[in-house]
C-alpha cells in the first residue's frame, strides 16, 4: 500500500510536468489547428536557459538563497523560451497560415530538428549535470516526499490557477476563445488575431519553460535531445485529455505520469515508453476526442 502511494506521488510529480507542457500543445492546436511539433524542444530550450542562468548566478554570487535562485532561473527560462516561440511563430508559422494543412506540421518538424541541433552545436552534445538544488525529504506516514516534488506540485497548481484566470476572466482570454471558435468572425469583431495567436504561443512557451526548469531540478541533468520524448508524451497527454481542452491537458498529463510510474513500478521499466505510446494509439483509435474533448462533427 505504501509502495503504491509512493508511486502515486512520483507519478503526480511527473504528471505535473507533462501537464504544463501539454497545455502549450492543446492551446496552439485549439487556436490554429496545428501540432506544434517544436514545442518539446522549446521545453528543452527552457531547461537549458535555466541551467545556464544557474551556472551564471552560482559563479558570480556564491551562496545565493535557493528560493531566489530558483525564481531567477524560472523567470529567465520563461523569458527566453517565450521569445524563441514568439520569433518562431512569426518567422516560420505565420507565413504558412493559409497554406495546406501539412505545411505548418512539416515546418514545425524542421524547427524541432533545427532547435535541438542548435543546442547541440552551441552547448555540446554531452549530458549536463547540476548539483542538487533542494535535497530535503519528508516522511509522511511512511511515504517519502521530497521538497522537489512539493515545489513542482505547488508551482503547477498556482500556475494553472493564474492561467485559468487569464483564459476565463480577462479580455485577452476572451479574445483567445473567440479566435479559437471562429477566426474570421473574431477578426471582424475587432480582435487582433495575429496578436492573440502570438500571445498564445508565448503563454505555451512560458509554461513549457517552467516545466523545463522543474525537469532540470527534478532529474538534475539535461541534454539536447531531451525535448523529443517528453514532448511526445505531453502531446499524448493533450490528446488523452481531449485536444483543445485545458483541464483535459492537465488531467491527461497526470494520467500519463501515473501510468508511467505505476507501469515502471509493477511491470518492466524497459517497456514504459511502449506503454505510453500504446495508450496514445488506443485512445486515438477508440475515442479520438479524448476524455474531455468535444467530438468533431464532419461537415460536407
Amino acid at each position, binding site marked *: 500500500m505504501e509502495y503504491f502511494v509512493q508511486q502515486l506521488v512520483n507519478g503526480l510529480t511527473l504528471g505535473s510536468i507533462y501537464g504544463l507542457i501539454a497545455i502549450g500543445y492543446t492551446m496552439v492546436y485549439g487556436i490554429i*489547428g496545428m*501540432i506544434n511539433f517544436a514545442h518539446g524542444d522549446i521545453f528543452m*530550450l527552457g531547461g*537549458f536557459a535555466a*541551467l*545556464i*542562468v544557474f*551556472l*551564471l548566478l552560482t*559563479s558570480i554570487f556564491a551562496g545565493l538563497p535557493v528560493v531566489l535562485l530558483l525564481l531567477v532561473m524560472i523567470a*529567465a527560462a520563461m*523569458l527566453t523560451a517565450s*521569445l524563441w516561440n514568439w*520569433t518562431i511563430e512569426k*518567422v*516560420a508559422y505565420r*507565413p*504558412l497560415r493559409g*497554406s*495546406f*494543412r*501539412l*505545411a505548418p*506540421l*512539416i*515546418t514545425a*518538424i*524542421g*524547427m*524541432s*530538428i*533545427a*532547435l535541438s*541541433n*542548435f*543546442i547541440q*552545436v*552551441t*552547448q*555540446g552534445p*554531452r549530458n*549536463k*549535470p*547540476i548539483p542538487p538544488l533542494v535535497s530535503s525529504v519528508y516522511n509522511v506516514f511512511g511515504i517519502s516526499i521530497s521538497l522537489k516534488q512539493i515545489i513542482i506540485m505547488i508551482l503547477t497548481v498556482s500556475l494553472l490557477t493564474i492561467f485559468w484566470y487569464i483564459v476565463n476572466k480577462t479580455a485577452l482570454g476572451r479574445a483567445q476563445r473567440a479566435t479559437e471558435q471562429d477566426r474570421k468572425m473574431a477578426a471582424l469583431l475587432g480582435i487582433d488575431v495575429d496578436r492573440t495567436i502570438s500571445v498564445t504561443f508565448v503563454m505555451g512557451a512560458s509554461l513549457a519553460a517552467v516545466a523545463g526548469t522543474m525537469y532540470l531540478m527534478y532529474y538534475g541533468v539535461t541534454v539536447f535531445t531531451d525535448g*523529443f520524448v517528453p514532448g*511526445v508524451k505531453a*502531446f499524448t497527454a493533450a*490528446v488523452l485529455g481531449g485536444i483543445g481542452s485545458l483541464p483535459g491537458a492537465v488531467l491527461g498529463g497526470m494520467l500519463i505520469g501515473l501510468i508511467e510510474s505505476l507501469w515502471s513500478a509493477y511491470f*518492466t521499466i*524497459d*517497456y514504459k*515508453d*511502449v506503454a505510453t*505510446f*500504446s495508450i*496514445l*494509439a488506443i485512445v*486515438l*483509435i477508440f475515442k*479520438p476526442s479524448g476524455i474531455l474533448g468535444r467530438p468533431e462533427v464532419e461537415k460536407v
Partner: protein
Amino acid sequence: MANISNTHESAGGNLTARALREGFYAGVISLGLFVLFVGLETTQNIRNELVLNQRWGLLAVFVIVAAVGRFLSVAYLRPWLAARKAAASATASTETEESFFKRNFSKIAIVALIFYPPLMVVLFGVQGSLKWVDNFGIQILIYVMLAWGLNIVVGLAGLLDLGYVAFYAVGAYSYALLSQYFGLSFWVLLPLAGILAAFWGMILGFPVLRLKGDYLAIVTLAFGEIIRLVLINWTEVTKGTFGVSGIPKASVFGIWSFDVSAPNNFAKVFELPMSSAYYKIFLFYLILALALLTAYVTIRLRRMPIGRAWEALREDEIACRSLGINTVTTKLTAFAIGAMFGGFAGSFFAVRQGFVSPESFVFLESAIILAIVVLGGMGSLIGIAVAAVVMVGGTELLREMTFLKSIFGPDFTPELYRMLIFGLAMVVVMVLKPRGFVGSREPTAFLKERKNVSGSFTKEGHG
C-alpha cells in the same frame, strides 16, 4: 507608428528609416534569443563540473548578422522583389516550348545514373570511386527509393505517415535475422522482407484507418517508436542496442559472390585486383533497379483504378465514399504497398551496411523521408528525386568541406552542422515554396488535353 502600414512608400527616407528601425528590433530580439545559448557555453572542467565559457564575440557576430540582414531585407530586397513581381505580371506570360533537356529529363537522368559508377572509376580510380559511389550514389538512391515509397502513402493517398521508418526497420531486421538464423540468401529474402513489411503495414494500417490528418500522423509516429523500442528491448532475438552484425553480403544471383574466400569471387573470376569497390558498384545498380521499380510501379498504379481511387481519396474523402469507393481497402493497399517498398529498401540497407541496430531507425529518419517527399512537391516523382539529391547530397557534401577548417580553425567540424542546416532548410523551403520544388502536378485523369494543375488547387493531408 503611423507609417508602418505604408509599405508602398518607395521614396528613400521613409523606407530607410523603417528599415533601420526593423534592423534595430531584429538585433535586439536576436540578442535576447542568443545571449544565453551563444554568449555562454557550458563545458565540463577537469573535475567534471560544469563551467561557463564566454563567447561574446560570437554573440556580437550573430546579433550584427541578424540586424544587418533584416535592414538589407527591408530596405533593398523586398522593394526589389516587389518591383520584379510587378514587372513579371506586366509582361503577359507566353507559352514557351519546353527545352529538349526539360522534356526528356527523366530519360537523361536514368542514362546518367547508369554511367555514373564507370565514370567515377575512370575519374578517381577503383579505390577512389568508393566514396563517390557509396556515400553519394547509394546513400542518395536509398533516400530516393524510401521517399518514392512514402510518396504512395502521403503523395498519392494523402495519408500522413510519420512512422514510415518502422517498415524500413522491419525490412532490415527481416533480412538480418532470417539470414542469420536460417541462412537464407538475399534474393530469397528481398521479396520476403517486402511481404513482411507490407503485412506489418496492414496490421498497423487497420486500426488507424478511422483517423484523419494530424491524428493519423501522431499514431503512426507512436507505432514507429513502439517498433523501435521493441527492437531495443527484445534482446533475446534482436540483440538490443548492440544490433545484428555480420550480415552476409548479396551475390549476383548466386553466380558471382563478393565474399573474399569464395571460389566464385567476382574479382577472382574476372582476374581483377581485390577491392570492395566492385561490391559497392553492384549495390549501386541494385538500389538503382529497386528505385526504378518503385517509380515504375507508382506510375503504373496511378493509371489503374486503385491509383485513381487513392488520388480521389486524397482530394475529398466524403465525395470518394459517396461514389462507392471502399475507403478501407483503398487506404490499406496504399499503406501496404508503401510499406512493401520500405521493406525492400530496408533489406537493401541491411545488406549494404552488414550491420543493423535500432539507432538507424529513429524518428529523425522518418522526418527526413517525409521532408523529402513534401519538399519534392508530393506526388511528383522527379521533384522528390531532386529534393533527395539536394537535401541528402547537400548535407553529405558538408562532410567533404574540409576547406572550411582553414577558415574557422582546426576545431571546426562541418558534420556537426549537418542536421542543423537540414532542419533550417526544411523551414526555409517550406516558407518560401510551400508546394515544394516542383510546384505543379500532372493530372492523371483529364478531359481532352492535359493541363497542369496549379499546386494551390490541390490539397493534401486530409486523410
